C-alpha cells in the first residue's frame, strides 16, 4: 500500500521545509525504483512516475528546468519527431533531456523528469524535449515552472475514439490552454484542425509549415476526413488539393479561414529528396506524413538557429529503433515493421507498400487493450482495396478475427487470410515463406513484436 500525502495539508501543517524533505525523499525513491528496474533489464516507463505521483500528486511543481521546454503533440508522428529533434540538438552540442520510449502521458513524463533531476529538483539541460499526449498538454504545462517555449502540433486525426474522444474535444482543450499561455506555436498549416490553434494564440508567435501541390496531390479526398467544416462559419471548407486524409490546402470561401502564409514550405518532392526554396533535404523515409513531420523540425531549427547541415545530416541518416518504419533482416528475409494505430496512420503506411511490385506478405497485429482503445471499429476506415499484391495476410492480436472480417469484406480472398491469436506463432507463420514481409501493428503490441523480431534477427 502507498501512503498518500496531500500536498496542501502537509504545507498547512508543517510548512515548506518538511515538504522539501518529503519531495527529496520521493525523488530518491523514484530514482532507486528506476535503478532497480533497469538492473532487472526492464524499462522504467510509467511505473516510477506513477508511484511518485501517488506519494505526492504535485511532485512536478517541485521541479525547476534550466533550459527551454519544447513539446511535441498531435495524433501521429510524436515519437519519431521528438527523437529526431533530440538527436539534432545533441549533435549541435546541446544538453538534451527527452522522453525516449514514447511514454507521453502524466506518469511517463514524470518518470523522465524525476530520472533526470537532482535531489533538489533541478533539471539541468539546454533543452527539455517532451512528446506529450494531446490531453495531457494542459495538465503538465500550465504551471509556471513547466512553461513551454515552443509547442509543435503535428496533426489531428481520429484516434481511439473511446479513449481519446473526438478531435473537437481535444482542439477545445488546447485552445483554452494556448489562450492562457505564452509560447511559440509550430503548426501544420495544411491541417484545418491544427490551424485553428493559431487563431487563439494572442500572446506567442505562430509558425506554419506545409507542402505545395504535388503531382501526387488529389483533387478529391478518398480517405476519411475530420474537421472539414470552417470553425467560424460552420460551412464546408473548400480544398484546392489534398495530400492525404484532410491534409491539404483549404480555405473557407466566406471568412477566408485557412489563408495563412507558410513559414516553411516544400515546393517540390522528388523521391527521397524534398526542396524548401533552394534548400535540399534527403530523407530515409519518403512517406508524405514523415516529410510533414520533418518540416516541423526545419521550422524549429529556424527558431533556435540550429545549423541546417546538422538537420540535413540527421534527416538522411536517422533510423527508427522504435518499431516505426524499422527494418529487420531475418534469415535473409527483409521484414519491415510499422505502427498503425488509427485509420490515417494505417492508411499512409499501407498505401506506401501495397502497390510495390514485389512478392510480399503482410502481418497485422490488432489488440484492444486500454491504451489501444477497446473499440476497434476504426479498422473499417482503413482502405483495404487493392490488396491482391499480398500473397497472404496474417491477422493476430486479441482482435485478430475483427481484422480478418474487415479484410474479407473489402474483397480480399478469404482463403489467403490466416488468423492466429498468438503473436509469436503468427510471426513464425509469416516467416515460413520466402518473400518480403511487412508488419503493421497497433499501439500496445508494437514493442513486444519489435523485440521478438530483434531476437529472431540476432539468432
Amino acid at each position, binding site marked *: 500500500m502507498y501512503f498518500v500525502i496531500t500536498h496542501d495539508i502537509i504545507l498547512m501543517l508543517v510548512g515548506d521545509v518538511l515538504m522539501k524533505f518529503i519531495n527529496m525523499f520521493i525523488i530518491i525513491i523514484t530514482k532507486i525504483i528506476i535503478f532497480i528496474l533497469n538492473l532487472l533489464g526492464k524499462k522504467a516507463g510509467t511505473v516510477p512516475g506513477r508511484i511518485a505521483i501517488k506519494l505526492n500528486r504535485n511532485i512536478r511543481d517541485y521541479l525547476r528546468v534550466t533550459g527551454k521546454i519544447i513539446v511535441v503533440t498531435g495524433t501521429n508522428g510524436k515519437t519519431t519527431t521528438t527523437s529526431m529533434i533530440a538527436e539534432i540538438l545533441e549533435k549541435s552540442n546541446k544538453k538534451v533531456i527527452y522522453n525516449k520510449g514514447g511514454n507521453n502521458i502524466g506518469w511517463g513524463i514524470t518518470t523522465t523528469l524525476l530520472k533526470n533531476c537532482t535531489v533538489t529538483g533541478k533539471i539541468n539541460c539546454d533543452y527539455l524535449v517532451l512528446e506529450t499526449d494531446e490531453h495531457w498538454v494542459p495538465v503538465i504545462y500550465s504551471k509556471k515552472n513547466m512553461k513551454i517555449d515552443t509547442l509543435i502540433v503535428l496533426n489531428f486525426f*481520429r484516434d481511439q475514439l473511446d479513449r481519446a474522444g473526438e478531435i473537437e474535444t481535444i482542439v477545445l482543450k488546447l485552445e483554452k490552454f494556448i489562450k492562457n499561455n505564452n509560447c511559440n506555436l509550430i503548426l501544420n498549416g495544411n491541417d484545418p484542425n491544427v490551424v485553428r490553434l493559431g487563431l487563439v494564440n494572442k500572446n506567442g508567435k505562430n509558425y506554419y509549415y506545409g507542402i505545395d501541390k504535388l503531382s501526387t496531390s488529389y483533387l478529391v479526398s478518398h480517405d476519411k*476526413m475530420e474537421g472539414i467544416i470552417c470553425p467560424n462559419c460552420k*460551412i*464546408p471548407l473548400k480544398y484546392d488539393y489534398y495530400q492525404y486524409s484532410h491534409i491539404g490546402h483549404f480555405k473557407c470561401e466566406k471568412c477566408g479561414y485557412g489563408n495563412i502564409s507558410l513559414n516553411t514550405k516544400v515546393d517540390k518532392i522528388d523521391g527521397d529528396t524534398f526542396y524548401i526554396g533552394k534548400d535540399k533535404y534527403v530523407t530515409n523515409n519518403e512517406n508524405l506524413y514523415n516529410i510533414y513531420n520533418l518540416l516541423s523540425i526545419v521550422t524549429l531549427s529556424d527558431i533556435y538557429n540550429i545549423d541546417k547541415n546538422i538537420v540535413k545530416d540527421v534527416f538522411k541518416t536517422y533510423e527508427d529503433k522504435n518499431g516505426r518504419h524499422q527494418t529487420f533482416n531475418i534469415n535473409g528475409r527483409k521484414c519491415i515493421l510499422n505502427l498503425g494505430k488509427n485509420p490515417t496512420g494505417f492508411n499512409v503506411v499501407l498505401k506506401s507498400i501495397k502497390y510495390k511490385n514485389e512478392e510480399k506478405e503482410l502481418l497485422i497485429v490488432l489488440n484492444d487493450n486500454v491504451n489501444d482503445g477497446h*473499440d476497434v*471499429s476504426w479498422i*473499417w476506415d482503413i482502405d483495404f482495396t487493392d490488396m491482391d499484391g499480398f500473397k497472404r495476410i496474417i491477422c493476430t492480436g486479441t482482435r485478430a*478475427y475483427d481484422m480478418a*472480417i474487415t479484410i474479407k469484406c473489402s474483397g480480399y480472398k478469404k482463403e489467403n487470410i490466416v*488468423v492466429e491469436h498468438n503473436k509469436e506463432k503468427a510471426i513464425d507463420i509469416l516467416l515460413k515463406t520466402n518473400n518480403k514481409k511487412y508488419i503493421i501493428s497497433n499501439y500496445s503490441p508494437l514493442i513486444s513484436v519489435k523485440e521478438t523480431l530483434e531476437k529472431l534477427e540476432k539468432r
Partner: protein
Amino acid sequence: MNLNILCLYPNMMDLYGDNGNIEIIKYRANKRGIDVNIDSYTINDEEPDFYNYDLVFLGGGSDKEQKVVSKDIIKYKKQIERSINLGVFYLLICGGFQLFGKYYKDSEDNIIEGLNIFDFYTESSTDKKERCIGNIVISSKIGNKNIEILGFENHGGQTFNTDKPFGKVLYGNGNTFKNEYEGLMTENVIGTYLHGPLLSKNPELSDYIIKYCLERKYKKNINLSKLDDEFEIIAKKEMLDKLLTKSNV
C-alpha cells in the same frame, strides 16, 4: 436482382467506421449475385429521390457535424417520412438515430432540432465525461428469432421516450445509463447506438435487412444462400464469452 442504397452525409456522419455497414451489405449481397448501387447525398448535392431507394443509411457524427447536418436534413422531412411509410428500410446509427427524434440537446445545452418522425428525444449531460462507452450486447427479435446483437456504444446523449426498442440490454448501457433497452426498431427502421460497425459481427441482421429490401422490392419470398461466416461467428463468440460470463459471474 439489385439493391439501391442511399448513404446520407457519408463525409460528415461516419465517426466510428459506420459506413462499414454499407460495405458489409454490399459484400453479402454481391456474394449472392445481387448487384448493389450506392449513392450518396451530402450538403450542396441535388435533392435525392428518397422513394427510389431500398435502403437509406445515416451514421453518427460529432456534435459539430450533427448541428450542420440537422439544418440540411430537415428540408427533406416530408420525403423521408413518406418513404418510411412506403416501407423503405432506414438504418440509423448513433447521431443519425438521434436526428430522427424530436431534438438533441448537446453537452453545451444547444438544442439541435430533429426530424420529429419519432417521439423520442435525446439529452446530453453538460459533463462531457459522462458518456456510455463500451462493448454492448442486446437481445433482439430479428425475423422470428431472438438473437444476440454485439456492438460498441459511445454516446453522451441519453435517449428518452422510446417505445419500440431494438433490443433488451444484456451487457452495457443502452438508450440511457444502465437502461433495460437499446435503440428503436419498427418493421423497416432500425435506430441504434451500436457501432462496431453494427453489421460486422451480426451477419444474421445484415441478411435480415437484405431479405427485407429484396422481398419488398420484388414482392416475393427470397431465400438467401448461406455464406461462409467463420470469421464473424468466431469473433462474435469470443466477445460474447468474454462479456457475458464476466457480467454473470
